[in-house]
């Protein structure tokens, strides 16, 4: 991985969570569930095109393990809410569910693709 690739990867991973944090809540406030649909088309899919889908993607995959932009948004929104003095301790059970479910679905998909 070159320095240039490291920079574009960081920038791509920076854009997505920032857009999510700044736009998603307002869209859902304005248009309810359809705001979520709008946010998915205008934020998730647009960022996906930028980071993964485009002919020259921002997130450079240095190895064979798929590093999704989801990793960036997961840590991004978590840290923002943490800095807003939301409790880390209370979110631990949810994090445990997320990690276990991630490992579980990874194993299931391994059975599918092996």
């Amino acid at each position, binding site marked *: 991985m070159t320095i240039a690739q490291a920079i574009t*990867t960081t920038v791509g991973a920076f854009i997505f969570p920032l857009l999510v944090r700044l736009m998603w809540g307002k869209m*859902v406030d304005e248009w309810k*569930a359809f705001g979520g649909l709008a946010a998915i088309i205008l934020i998730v899919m647009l960022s996906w095109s930028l980071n993964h889908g485009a002919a020259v993607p921002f997130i450079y995959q240095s190895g064979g393990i798929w590093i*999704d932009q989801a990793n960036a948004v997961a840590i991004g929104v978590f840290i923002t*809410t943490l800095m807003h003095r939301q409790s880390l301790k209370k*979110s631990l059970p949810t*994090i445990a569910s*997320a990690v276990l479910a991630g490992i579980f679905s*990874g*194993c299931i998909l391994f059975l599918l693709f092996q």
Partner: protein
Amino acid sequence: MKNVKSFIGFAFAGIFVMSSVWSTFGEYGIFFSFIGGTIIITSLWYLNHYWDLIHNHENAAFVDMAMAIGIAGIVRDFLLKGTHELVLSLPTLFFVLLGGTLAGVTAYFIEKYDQKEAKK
């Protein structure tokens, strides 16, 4: 029970997004990838966060379904390809997490500034 519900929601997200559904749509070009992704993510978001199958406790830091999706992708490819590829992918993981962290911090300062301005 709440955590069992969350587990089911997270597992749905991981399995759907990291299955081959999205890439099969993608075989017809990026436009169809776009459509496929929109269908998958909208369905999961509605289930997990709008309808709250994933239970985020009150005043707890927000855990997005993306956490399970990211981990599912890593675990899947780790089991398929092994430790060597995992080590090769660590730089990407590091810079993706770095970018996400920077974005989270930036978003906090923007939101805090906006709250201050709104109070004036």
